[in-house]
């Protein structure tokens, strides 16, 4: 199976979801399924699945404290240590994690190695970092903006976010900056996977599928807002109903809405069973979330067990005469 198959399968899967949702939207009994049952089911799968995965990770202990140290250790008092890259207490670990989780610090270090006339050249390369940052932050902001559909009255911070995000005031309704960023960043991450030979080599359908899915979510959202308008009052009736656990199914919501919801639901349900779990894993990764304090504080391994030793006594028994001849002291003459 090569790239084409991986791409075909992932794109096909996303298109199939779109198609099913379009069909479902035409049949009022199926609207109930796609508007209410599927989102609920997806949400439940997401929550339970996420918890299950994290608990499952937690069931395996961390026998050794083996963080990757990327800076100067805490040592002699006059040597300046690197608190963030080589943390030596919980607070510093939190600092390291904050930078990792919110600023993608390790990706920031990214370089690109190339060979030119027999030498390796390491070029700075911030695009991956920028792309990842743009993608994750626009996704987050868009998700928060969507709160206005689920809570009534709309919280003030959501309104503020809306205002800032729509600052450019292009067109009516206003185009959000994050919409452009999200679609742009996802497209970049996708194109990178397909055209960079190394990326194409390592990419799987599991990598293309979420990208197509999120791209589909973005496009259907933008379509809904600008081109194929839906009745926003009914939409809000449905979403608030979902959130308040009193689901209602108003008449006359456009089909595109159901497509959007189906894609989002798929993303939710798919999340816990995929690489998207990196969202949880980044917090639990022992390569980053431990302090480099092994020599100052003992770390306990819950399954530590005694091993067969070659004791000094056995050693001396093996070599006693030779040791004596060489003038090395022995315990028993």
């Amino acid at each position, binding site marked *: *199976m090569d790239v084409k198959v991986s791409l075909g399968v992932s794109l096909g899967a996303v298109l199939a979801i779109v198609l099913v949702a379009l069909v479902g939207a035409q049949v009022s009994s199926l609207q109930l399924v796609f508007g209410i049952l599927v989102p609920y089911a997806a949400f439940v799968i997401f929550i339970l699945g996420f918890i299950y995965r994290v608990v499952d990770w937690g069931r395996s202990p961390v026998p050794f404290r083996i963080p990757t140290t990327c800076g100067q*250790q805490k040592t002699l008092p006059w040597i300046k240590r690197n608190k963030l890259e080589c943390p030596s207490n919980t607070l510093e670990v939190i600092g390291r994690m904050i930078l990792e989780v919110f600023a993608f610090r390790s*990706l920031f270090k990214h370089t690109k190695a190339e060979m030119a006339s027999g030498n390796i050249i390491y070029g700075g390369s911030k695009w991956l970092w920028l792309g990842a940052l743009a993608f994750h932050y626009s996704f987050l902001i868009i998700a928060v903006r969507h709160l206005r559909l689920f809570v009534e009255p709309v919280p003030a911070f959501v309104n503020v976010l809306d205002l800032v995000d729509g600052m450019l005031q292009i067109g009516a309704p206003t185009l959000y900056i994050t919409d452009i960023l999200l679609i742009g960043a996802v497209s970049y991450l996708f194109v990178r996977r397909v055209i960079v030979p190394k990326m194409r080599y*390592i990419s799987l359908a599991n990598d293309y599928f979420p990208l197509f899915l999120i791209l589909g979510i973005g496009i259907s959202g933008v379509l809904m807002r600008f081109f194929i308008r839906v009745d926003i009052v009914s939409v809000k009736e449905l979403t608030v109903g979902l959130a308040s656990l009193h689901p209602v199914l108003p008449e006359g919501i456009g089909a595109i809405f159901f497509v959007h919801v189906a894609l989002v639901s798929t993303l939710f349900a798919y999340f816990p069973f995929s690489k998207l779990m990196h969202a949880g894993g980044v917090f639990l990764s022992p390569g980053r979330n431990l302090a480099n304090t092994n020599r100052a504080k003992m770390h306990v391994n819950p399954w530590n067990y005694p091993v067969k030793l070659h004791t000094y006594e056995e050693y001396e028994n093996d070599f006693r005469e030779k*040791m004596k001849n060489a003038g090395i002291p022995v315990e028993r003459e």
Partner: protein
Amino acid sequence: MANIPKYYESLNLDYKPPRGNWMDRPLNIKSGIYCYPARPNVLAGIQMNDRSDWGKYWVVEDEDWELPDDWKERFLNKMRDMLDKYRTFKIYMDICVRCGACADKCHYFLGSGDPMNMPVMRAELLRSVYRGEFTKTGKILGRIAGARKLTKGVLRQIWYYMFQCSECRRCSTFCPYGIDTAEITIMAREIMNELGMNIAWIQESCYKCIHTGNHLGLQPQAYKECIDCMLGDIEENVGISFDVSWNRKGADILFVTPSGDVFAEPGIYTLAGYLLLFEYLRKEYGFDYTWSTYASEGGDFGYFTANDIAKRMNSKIYLEAKRLGVKWILGGECGHMWRVLNQYMTTWHGPVDFLEEPVSPITGTKFENAKAHKMVHIMEFTADLIKHGKLKLDPSRNDRLRVTYHDSCNPSRGMGLLEEPRYVIKNVCNHFYEMPENTLRDQTFCCGSGSGLNASENMELRMRGGFPRQNAVRYVRDKYGVNMLACICAIDRAAFPDAQRYWNPDVGCTGITELVANALIMEGEGPRTNNLRGFEIATWEPKP
């Protein structure tokens, strides 16, 4: 070395993997890349699986690897066991997003261009099996989900590439989740022990170490002889003669260092450096230490094969410290030795209540960072001495040297020991130049022969893996006239001469304590016209 391109100008790699799916690429096992399998008697001698239950030895280039009927269960059961024991393993199997940040970070990839040496692919070899054998989605979706079943072909691939990783963790530095491919390699190697599939170079060192106390298999009298011989050389070159004590009860400090430095050049001069430094401290300040023939190995090749063996080998250090009743332990220059000491030792054997919290007997400095562990790195110890002005030094004796420093991968990424060695070098040498920053500190490269891959049959792999480091050395050689590569690792000192004869034939290699000892002004010394290597200081041209 016959099948390696002779000059690296010809090593023109474009780092472009071929088209098509990697799962379909046939495995092409090349001699010069792999190490020979361990012999059954060696494995039996350390109670490891020696294949005697199914009675078959194996040859890497054979089609049939002589596996037992239930090989698959053995492999998968052990893998399950490791997944349950190590959260690292489980999480690293689950969360890689294949972002590619690690792809061009591995020295083996950079030197060979083999796409399976991209760290992410190394991990995917095992991860694909994890998906196919342990996850529901993988079982249902198969290859679409990047999953595959464990077959003999897959096992061959895993084995071949897990012994092309030196567990250096450079990839992990760049990974947004800290995924540590070294850890995955460690797991894979341990799993494959169930099938008796490990390499001779590592297992023989383990065997020797468990039985004689050191990797070289030096028996107590031979170990002592080596050091006596060095004392003779010191007398010749420095003009002072002294003795050292062996297995001495009641000494203040036990000194432990890798045995590699007892035997081969240029490591032996690092060892001569320790001898001279400690003699200086003894005379000036009454420093009281002992050598041990029982704990005569700081390194731990067990770490490259199985947790169990690593722990067995490492246990001698604390056992001996306890038996001799010393206050604390001083450790020499070594890379993986310090990764193991720092990240595993107290967890294996602690709490270490039979030793005292380390305090320098000379400066009174408390090594707070080693409170629980009770072992101090020679660079921490020496840096502290220099800072307090306790060493009389004449750095001009190193003036013919234009020195650069190689951060050995383990002390940098497994410990964070970055500035101490630099401080020491700058105080004993007048000419010090740094290599480019993308090849240093947390981004440092492996020498190319780490994690027990410094055998001789895999020389092509070693030369290729050593290339990124040597390329950076060549950069400072051309720019600043650097002629000496300093390091704090015994494997480096064993590996660099080979790599340098190949890539940089006019650059030498040294441990830092050798530089210290050459600069050290000893009470009652003879004319110091020669350095510790017996070359005339004024005219010396270092060579690998």
